[in-house]
């Protein structure tokens, strides 16, 4: 029982590290958000993010290692979907939250600029 707990905790924290490292990158956050809507092939993702196939493959493999994305090869097309683990949904949410927070700060900055001098 004791060793099961320890093992569980170690695996748990290393997977979270991988998740955070994976979502730290803006492109990978975008990929998760996109895959949250519907599946896509590597080629489609590369086009959507204006990136080479090789570059996109690297991003997808980081996401795959973190368990956030699953890929399946049918014929010559590799299709990506969000990973089955609940963490994938969580990571997509963290990614979405981070994008929202950053956009909100820009929006607040613009609002403060726009209303400068409206009130002493």
């Amino acid at each position, binding site marked *: 029982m004791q060793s099961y707990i320890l093992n569980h905790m170690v695996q748990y924290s290393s997977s979270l590290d991988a998740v955070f490292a994976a979502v730290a990158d803006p492109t990978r956050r975008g990929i998760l958000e996109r895959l949250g809507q519907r599946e896509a092939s590597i080629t489609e993702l590369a086009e959507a993010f204006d990136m080479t196939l090789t570059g996109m493959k690297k991003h997808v493999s980081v996401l795959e290692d973190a368990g956030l994305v699953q890929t399946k090869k049918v014929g010559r097309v590799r299709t990506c979907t969000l990973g089955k683990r609940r963490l994938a949904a969580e990571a997509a949410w963290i990614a979405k939250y981070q994008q929202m927070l950053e956009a909100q700060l820009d929006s607040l900055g613009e609002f*403060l600029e726009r209303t400068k001098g409206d009130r002493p």
Partner: protein
Amino acid sequence: MISTANRHTLTTPTDRTIRVEREFDAPRDRVWRAYTEPDLIAQWWGRGNKLDIERMEVERGGHWRVVEHTPEGESHGFEGRFREVTPKDRISRTFEWDGMPGYTILETAEFFDTPDGRTRMVSTALFFSPEERDGMLHSGMEGGMAQSYAALDRVLAEMR
């Protein structure tokens, strides 16, 4: 990991934390008002999307709830409770999205004067998740949690 693309600095100090620092060209009083007064929040929080502010009780324990409407016709509700409100200095609240209930974020914003009359804001988001809670349940099994379950067993037995 540092990103400075949009005039802010984003770091991830722990594997559960996002920290964003940004300066605003406005005194702290104005930034605080924009951050806490519903009429003003409505003008920036939605990033251009229509926003309904259903509740905004800016005090310790107060509820807040906003619903954002996207141009595609989707509605997203966000809500939580204020945990700490120290006017013009620090505000801390829980943050949940209706789409991921139970995945609570603790959001803290701190405001500082800069020497040139601007305001530096530091926003920290700490993520909690059911997975994390499950981990705590596992590790606490042999302590108080087991006692609580034993007590619950007794109550349930008596109810039969």
